[in-house]
């Protein structure tokens, strides 16, 4: 069931940049978004999700710097019938902790396994695809997990390739050290910076665990 998204909701400026980005997305896309402000973060995450909902895809958002309530309010402002989407299960809004540490601890292989099964379940349920936006800043609360998180980032591409999946990992560049940002560039073939989508030449299709 597709949610209705108003074409140019008052005060949102129409999100022309997202239409351009959307036209270049392809199944299996695993993007990272590097941003500096909460506004930049939402201006990418919300229309990306609203667009997915409008296309009838199942959508998940793992929030951290914004609360799930803020994400839901932002989607409402874009014309999404949030209550109905939540009720039907087309939309899920969680905290990043719920998504990444469903088993109580963070295990990159477990997250990957359950994410792939989530995508497959969406397809079985009749959705044309699945999209996920995840705020990665939660990892800053426990930097010891950063290395295994980067293992997940490196594995992700191969795991979702050919699946009807589109995902954005959001990194606040003002909160992460430079070396993490370089690692995100090493692990994402395409990158969103501000409002633009770039093919990323620094991406390394290498084995995970490389230091």
């Amino acid at each position: 069931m597709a949610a209705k998204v108003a074409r140019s909701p008052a005060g949102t400026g129409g999100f022309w940049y997202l239409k351009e980005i959307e036209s270049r997305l392809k199944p299996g896309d695993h993007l990272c978004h590097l941003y500096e402000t909460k506004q930049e973060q939402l201006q990418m995450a919300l229309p990306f999700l609203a667009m997915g909902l409008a296309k009838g895809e199942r959508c998940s958002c793992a929030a951290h710097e914004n609360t799930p309530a803020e994400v839901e309010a932002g989607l409402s402002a874009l014309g999404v019938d949030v209550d109905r989407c939540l009720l039907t299960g087309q939309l899920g809004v969680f905290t990043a902790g719920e998504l990444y540490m469903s088993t109580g601890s963070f295990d990159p292989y477990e997250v990957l396994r359950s994410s792939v099964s989530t995508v497959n379940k969406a397809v079985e349920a009749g959705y044309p695809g699945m999209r996920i936006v995840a705020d990665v800043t939660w990892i800053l609360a426990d930097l010891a997990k950063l290395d295994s998180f980067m293992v997940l980032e490196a594995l992700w591409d191969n795991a979702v390739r050919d699946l009807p999946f589109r995902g954005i990992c959001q990194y606040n560049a003002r909160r992460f050290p430079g070396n993490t940002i370089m690692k995100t560039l090493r692990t994402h073939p395409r990158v969103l910076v501000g409002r633009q989508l770039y093919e990323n030449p620094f991406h390394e299709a290498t084995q995970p665990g490389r230091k």
Partner: protein
Amino acid sequence: MSGSSYLTQIERRLKPGDHLCSFYENKTEQFQVVLPFLKRGLDLGEKCAYIADENTVAEIKAGLLAHGVDVGRRLESGQLTVVTAREFYLRLGRFDPRAMMSFVISAVNEAVREGYPGLRVAGESTWILKDLNSLDDFLEYETMGNAALRNLPVKALCQYNVNRFLGSIIMKVLQTHSRVLLGLDLYENPFCEPLPAR
């Protein structure tokens, strides 16, 4: 890959006016890029300058020696200079992006007047962390670099330790250098605004 074969690959692709940045996490990664870069410049007869901050001047000289550079002779002839960031970037007491860029351009012209085919500069950027008031000015200077150095006989390498800088600064650095040295590769950098053709 040995240092020299990697460098031959990269060196072949360098061009006058190149404004490069390199990212590294430790001294090994830093030195495997910058020392061959300088040595090659010296071998080609170019005038070379190194601006040191997280390494001492003595460490840079020792590193070059270990790479087979006859440091004493090069220093004496004036072909090689190794200075501290304080002496170079803060020579006027405070950092002024326009004055700094003019100084670099006049150094290129002076090298040519002295008969060198060009100038090669490599600088460490960590001094900014001790003088964060200069950060915006320094990034403005970096932005000016692409256009200001274009077509001049100069190759400039700005080095950034990604363990020391915040991600947002690294992103700005990425947006101000048209080509990037990372690992042992030279990349055309799509995150940098291209210069208008002329």
